[in-house]
């Protein structure tokens, strides 16, 4: 039997039992679409998180007080007070390392910001001039904090775009004064809109010099130090230098944690990839169900088409030809279902993409390959028994008069 004839024959069967064909295509399609859509959501979440970390800056190392053996956790936050604070001098000492390009010490708190009678509570960031380059942010208006000794800052501040619009409305904010607690600051710059970045909206912050923040929050301790290595290759060196310098400064005790962006990224990447695989796998169960449906339908087909199978044998079809006819039918159904599923899955992905434009939903390549492949493999596997049964059918029994 020629291959083209085999295809034509299976095609005629599929066309001859339209409802049945449509139902299997539907089941297969739903299975494949589910795998594609679900894995697209998982992959979207992963890319979203990865991008968020990426937007923190490049070649970044975050130094935080306290020691933790696992990357990713935040020891300072989890364990409360840590044995030794990070000081400004610690931060400045890091500049000795040849692998480090720039550093930005950081103090974070919340403050009531007021202009005239308007008050707004915002996160207040105390840092130095280099912060803007480490974090790779841009200015909408004016300048960032001035360079100079971080121990003696001027009474100036930089505000986020949203803070500016809320406190000043359409008025020019640049050059105006605002109050945080009992201190006055002149606004020298407005940050460009950047939006959410790791749960921290830079449009809603006020940035003041480090020394001012120390006075405001009455603390010497740094929340963390952001360090930018000179290049990607120098990140490990920089990390080692940080640990060595701070160990020396802390009387030989290793009581800080340096998290590289890569390490955090890798952890999240692993977790989310595993998650995507898991949900994709759960969705794949529906493919197995579709496979069982195929088997059921094929078994019915063997009974329904007994006479036809008997006839085919009588006019000279071999067992192999009968089996081939059934397998061709199953594969065509699977291919059709997979194609429908891919299209529907893709449309679904576009639809949720429309609903959540921030998240880059894309079906990962493995899902796009694995889903149709699983569909084909399950339908072929589940056709083994029906095909065998058809091939073994006794033509005399099949053709007997009732």
């Amino acid at each position: 039997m020629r291959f083209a004839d085999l295809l034509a024959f299976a095609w005629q069967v599929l066309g001859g039992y339209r409802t049945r064909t449509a139902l299997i295509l539907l089941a297969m399609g739903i299975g494949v679409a589910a795998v594609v859509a679900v894995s697209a959501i998982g992959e979207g979440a992963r890319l979203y998180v990865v991008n968020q970390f990426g937007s923190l800056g490049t070649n970044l190392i975050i130094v935080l007080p306290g020691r933790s053996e696992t990357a990713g956790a935040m020891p300072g936050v989890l364990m409360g007070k840590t044995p030794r604070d990070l000081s400004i001098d610690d931060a400045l000492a890091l500049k000795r390392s040849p692998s480090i390009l720039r550093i930005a010490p950081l103090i974070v708190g919340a403050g009531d910001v007021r202009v005239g009678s308007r008050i707004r509570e915002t996160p207040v960031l105390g840092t130095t001039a280099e912060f803007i380059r480490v974090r790779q942010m841009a200015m909408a208006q004016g300048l960032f904090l001035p360079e100079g000794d971080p121990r003696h800052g001027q009474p100036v501040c930089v505000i986020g775009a949203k803070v500016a619009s809320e406190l000043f409305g359409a008025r020019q904010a640049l050059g105006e004064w605002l109050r945080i607690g009992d201190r006055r600051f002149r606004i020298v710059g407005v940050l460009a809109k950047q939006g959410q970045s790791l749960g921290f909206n830079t449009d809603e912050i006020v940035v003041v010099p480090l020394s001012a923040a120390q006075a405001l929050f009455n603390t010497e301790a740094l929340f963390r130090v952001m360090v930018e290595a000179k290049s990607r290759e120098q990140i490990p060196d920089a990390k080692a230098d940080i640990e060595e310098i701070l160990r020396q400064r802390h009387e030989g005790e290793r009581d800080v944690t340096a998290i590289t962006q890569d390490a955090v990224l890798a952890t999240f990447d692993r977790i989310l990839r595993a998650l995507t695989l898991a949900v994709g796998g759960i969705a794949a169960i529906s493919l197995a169900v579709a496979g069982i449906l195929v088997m059921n339908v094929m078994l019915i087909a063997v009974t329904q088409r007994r006479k036809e199978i008997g006839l085919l044998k009588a006019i000279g079809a071999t067992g192999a030809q009968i089996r081939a006819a059934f397998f061709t039918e199953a594969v065509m159904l699977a291919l059709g279902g997979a194609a429908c599923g891919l299209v529907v899955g893709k449309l679904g992905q576009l639809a949720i993409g429309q609903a959540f434009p921030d998240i880059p939903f894309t079906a990962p390549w493995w899902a796009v390959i694995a889903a149709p492949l699983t569909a084909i493999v399950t339908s072929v596997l589940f056709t083994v028994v029906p095909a065998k049964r058809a091939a073994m059918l006794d033509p005399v029994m099949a053709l007997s008069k009732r």
Partner: protein
Amino acid sequence: MIRLTGIERVFRVGDEAVHALRGVDLLIEQGEYLSIMGPSGSGKSTLLNILGLLDRPDAGRYELNGHDVTGLADDELARVRREAIGFVFQFFHLVPRLTAAQNIELPMVLAGIDPAERRRRLDKLLGEYGLEARAGHRPDQLSGGQCQRVAIARAMSMGPTLILADEPTGNLDRHTGQEVMAVLERVHREGGTVAVVTHDPEIGARAQRRIRLVDGEIAGDASA
């Protein structure tokens, strides 16, 4: 030429063994036209199935065109059926979703004959059996006589040497039955061996050689 020697066929029904055929010896020359008659349960359909290689005898030897086909494997039997034997059934057994032309073409498709050659033979068969106008119709759009003509054309499509017809007129009215028999007889005149199993004495009497089976044994073998 067909030679059956000592053919036995036993069916098990529960604990009981039913002898459908007992020691049947039969010699059929190429080009013979024979009818096989007998009461229900006399084994005539079993004999036809064995002649058509659809069923295997429990004992005995079957030679078809000089070759022993008794011990052939299933796939070889399928090949012999395809090349050498044409079947005509009481219930036509056309594939309902295929057109008349596609039904006629089916054995050639299974044999892997190329489409151009199939087309050529198909046109010839449609002409011979007066089915040109019906080629694109499906079986449910055809009359019983037309269905049986399609079935005969299908049986003839591979140019077999042996045509086996099991009650070919059983589902047709008298007139159409006569027509179908005329078609089968034309096959015989063109040199084919034709064996017809029938209940109908009138149909049976048309054959030159009449075999009568009773209880699985040949009770009569008369030539006109």
